[in-house]
């Protein structure tokens, strides 16, 4: 027989960026343990709509852990009580029948709340726009292996590139620092010859933008790495420090 859960949800409700927010308590029943967390949220919203109430606003898109849109702080952890997953990959089997689940938005001065559980993460886009790309002159397709890249470098670059920019690192950080995100974006390109060309400029511009946007300073606590759904390593932050400092000293 399929197991189901009856749950109490304490959800952050906030009408707008400048409005004062509050917690609302809702009850949901007969939630299948096989459903995902966001499916449970959908059931809640359907229930609210049927009751003529306003549904809870939350970010979501691909629902397969690759777009980085979902962003819920669940029971004390970004993306909830499981490791290396996004909120949309969280299953209800991680919760117990009768449990109270507290659902909050990311909390950081860099990510102001727009509505309910949705926060404004355009700061990340601004950091990317400051240099998180390679200026490519497209020409003919180059021969395979014309540019030899050592396997460890390729692997590390791929690991860094798995960052989906969800912002869980900032949400988990006691300093509201975006260093894990920026370091992943700098690393994925700095490790490869194509990205190496603009590496110094990229590190300087992205860090300058990050500071300007009011993100905090890294104190190496490592909370970001623990909560990152993609397991981005702290070693990227050390690489960013290295890239940034050498670029500045060369000036």
């Amino acid at each position: 027989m399929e197991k189901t859960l009856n749950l109490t949800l304490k959800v952050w409700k906030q009408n707008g960026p400048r409005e004062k927010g509050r917690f609302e308590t809702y009850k949901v029943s007969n939630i299948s343990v096989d459903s995902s967390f966001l499916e449970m949220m959908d059931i809640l919203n359907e229930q609210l709509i049927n009751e003529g109430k306003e549904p809870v606003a939350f970010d979501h898109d691909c629902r397969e852990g690759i777009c980085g849109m979902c962003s819920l702080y669940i029971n004390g952890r970004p993306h909830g009580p499981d490791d290396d997953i996004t909120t949309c990959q969280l299953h209800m089997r991680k919760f117990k029948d009768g449990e109270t689940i507290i659902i909050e938005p990311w909390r950081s001065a860099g990510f102001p709340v727009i509505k309910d559980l949705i926060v404004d993460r355009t700061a990340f886009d601004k950091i990317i726009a400051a240099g998180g790309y390679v200026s490519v002159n497209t020409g003919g397709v180059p021969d395979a292996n014309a540019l030899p890249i050592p396997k460890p470098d390729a692997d590390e670059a791929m690991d860094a590139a798995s960052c989906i920019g969800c912002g869980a690192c900032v949400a988990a950080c006691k300093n509201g620092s975006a260093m894990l995100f920026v370091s992943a974006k700098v690393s994925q390109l700095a490790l490869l010859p194509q990205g190496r060309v603009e590496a110094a400029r990229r590190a300087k511009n992205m860090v300058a933008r990050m500071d300007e946007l009011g993100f905090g300073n890294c104190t190496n606590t490592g909370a970001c790495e623990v909560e990152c759904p993609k397991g981005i390593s702290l070693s990227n932050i050390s690489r960013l420090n290295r890239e940034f400092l050498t670029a500045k000293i060369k000036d």
Partner: protein
Amino acid sequence: MSSLLCSSIGKKLLMGLSGLFLMIFLLVHLGVNALLLVPDGGELFNAGAHFMATNPAVKIMEPILGLGFLVHIVYGVVLTLQNRKARGSAQYASGKKTKGVTWASQNMLVLGITILAFLVLHIAHFWVKMKVTGSDLLEHVTINIGGVPTEVENAYALVNATFSELWIVLVYVVAGIGLAIHLSHGFWSSFQSIGFSNNLWRKRLTTTGQVYAWFVGLGFALIALLQYLFFQA
């Protein structure tokens, strides 16, 4: 250069470099303190203290050391204030349940203030008496340094008398443990901040850091405790 030191990573560089510098100082300090445990009535310790007081290299390093402390303290406070602002005032109602984050790493300012409070007391006990006001206990004694009879201040008598009081020894033990906890995060963190770390070195640095932190912290505490227990006339 100014734009470097205004950036977040630049400020962390100063924090890391000053931290590394202070950690080297702690080793030298602990080395001289260890002479307190030689049971020769303080002759070797007095020779060591005399060397530290007269050596030109040490004289040059003294103001630099002061600067190192100042940079570390000022930037520690500035960075923490910025971080609080970046974090924002909204707190998580469900708390922070992230596992695997060390307590030390999240309480570096509190630990630093504890160490600073101790430092004020420590400077009043020794540095002020040795360099400014003087003390009856510091009366000159003659010892043999390499076979040459030399007149030196009896620093050992001052240390020994200070560590005859239980409350002072207890303060030193607490401060030693606080220092160990501070360094248990500070050691690897300073290397990470200056960019000297990767997946392999992180393991090496955190392990070395733990050994270094508890060796230094408990070393200072133990020397004070042993002076109280076994070296009183």
